[in-house]
């Protein structure tokens, strides 16, 4: 393992020191490992809290700021934050209008946010509404399983619900927007390589040079199946087809999001974006907005995911609204 670290156990706490030093507009609670906006909560604005295991940067800490999250709880690498952290974040962002928890659908994240909401209700009485993202079409959804994973759409939920909260909408309305985005978005990912968790020191799984993992999650957990390495044109089809087969995207326009897993250069992501754009054009689906880059990553994994979000006028306006965070910034 070659990494820019001092000691595996200190990766998160030392990285948060860097976040604080680089971004004076953010405040880091090092004890709770929570990233806050530096300015105090705005009275009457719904607070947005998200969080999860670390290793997906810029998600979630890089999305804290005006027009997006109010706080992000940073768990250990690929490990959900604990309830104490989530309670600290919830208390810290409350502006009297309630707090939205944006939770990716993983067993640990859901349980820890659930325990935190119970603790917040019992101690402070802050109203908390959870919205769980589950957009990964690689996972079969059934009543007997834990359901689909929350992946790429989480970035879009945080941006769009964040804009709705900034406008002064109520907790119920902001939660509705978040649920709308989640239900109108679908994702599919693939890996060219595994990733190396610092504490483990070696790749989470072996992937031969001539194979790719299709339907990968964001924690180095293996996907649904392995297939031979193929040209980008074919890989794009393997990602886009299951998404289009899962939801009717209509002709009103979509947001097309090609996301890097952390170890793939932008030149390849843009090449992939061209392939995705071509496939959507062939399917008669107009692209209204796009996003290309590393936004929800899996440490040093090479690979990408595709997320498509069906837009309506409200979602489009909220997407275009100003945002001022370390990782997404426009209109300000």
């Amino acid at each position, binding site marked *: 393992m070659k990494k820019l670290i001092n000691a595996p156990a200190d990766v998160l706490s030392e990285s948060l020191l860097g976040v604080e030093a680089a971004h004076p507009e953010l405040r880091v609670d090092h004890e709770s490992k929570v990233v806050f906006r530096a300015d105090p909560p705005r009275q009457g604005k719904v607070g947005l809290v998200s969080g999860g295991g670390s290793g997906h940067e810029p998600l979630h800490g890089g999305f804290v700021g005006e027009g997006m999250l109010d706080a992000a709880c940073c768990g250990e*690498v690929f490990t959900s*934050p604990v309830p*104490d952290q989530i309670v600290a974040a919830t208390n810290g962002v409350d502006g009297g209008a309630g707090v939205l928890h944006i939770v990716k659908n993983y*067993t640990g994240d859901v349980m820890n946010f659930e325990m935190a909401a119970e603790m917040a209700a019992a101690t402070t009485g802050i109203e908390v509404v959870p919205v769980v993202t589950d957009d990964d079409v690689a996972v079969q959804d059934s009543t007997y*399983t834990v359901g689909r994973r929350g992946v790429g759409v989480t970035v879009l939920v945080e941006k769009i619900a964040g804009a709705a909260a900034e406008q002064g909408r109520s907790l119920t309305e902001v939660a509705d927007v978040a649920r709308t985005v989640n239900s109108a978005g679908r994702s599919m990912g693939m890996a060219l390589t595994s990733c190396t968790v610092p504490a*483990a020191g070696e790749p989470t*799984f072996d992937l031969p040079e001539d194979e790719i993992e299709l339907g990968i999650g964001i924690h180095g*957990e293996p996907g*649904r199946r392995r297939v031979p390495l193929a040209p980008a044109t074919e890989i794009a089809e393997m990602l886009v087809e299951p998404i289009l087969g899962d939801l009717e995207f209509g002709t009103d326009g979509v947001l097309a999001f090609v996301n890097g897993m952390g170890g793939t250069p932008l030149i390849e992501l843009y090449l992939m974006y061209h392939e995705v754009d071509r496939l959507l054009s062939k399917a008669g689906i107009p692209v209204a907005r796009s996003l290309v880059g590393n936004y929800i990553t899996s440490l040093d994994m090479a690979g990408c995911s595709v997320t498509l979000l069906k837009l309506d006028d409200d979602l489009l306006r909220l997407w275009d609204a100003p945002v001022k965070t370390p990782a997404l910034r426009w209109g300000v």
Partner: protein
Amino acid sequence: MMLGDVATVIDATAVRAWLVSFAQEVADNRELLTQLDAAIGDADHGANLDRGLKAVVAALDGIDQANPGDLLKATGMTLVSTVGGASGPLYGTLFLRMSGSAGGEDSLDPAQFAAALRAGLEGVVARGRAQAGDKTMYDALAPACDALDEALDEGVGLDEALGRAADAAQAGRDATIPMLARKGRASYLGERSVGHQDPGATSTALLVTTARVMAGEGSP
């Protein structure tokens, strides 16, 4: 009954010895747990549980006067606050429910301990919504509770009863190998989760196996 040096009740000293022994076994098996988790999860079960249990041992060191319920509560609270992932809430809830069941008693007789362990199992089910055969810690813990109840019904001593519970937990752990995971991250693998031993069931088998230290010296 002639029980010699073997204990017939479980007091705070015994519970403390169990928790310390569990922490030691998890530390010794940290790499195994992580390897099992790498195959069907995300390679962090050993590291996370080891971190949490080291914090538990430190917390227990700071508690002088306590009954079994106090120690179990401190264990649960510490695990919830330090482990994260799914294991934190699940193991935390297990110990908190055990603490609730143990109440303020200075010592637990075998039936009270069995009732506490079953309360812990019920907490795990309430938190994780797992059922038999989902390939989770439930598949090691539920057979252990059943075996403990049956052994005590037959009137065997604490050491023998905990031994049978350990055997049942280990058999339950081994039985997860051919199972198709239906909970947690392993469930995303579908058919590919078959053929791998569940890391949660493995750590739970360590928990039940180390419980035998409460029956007296020389065990397990």
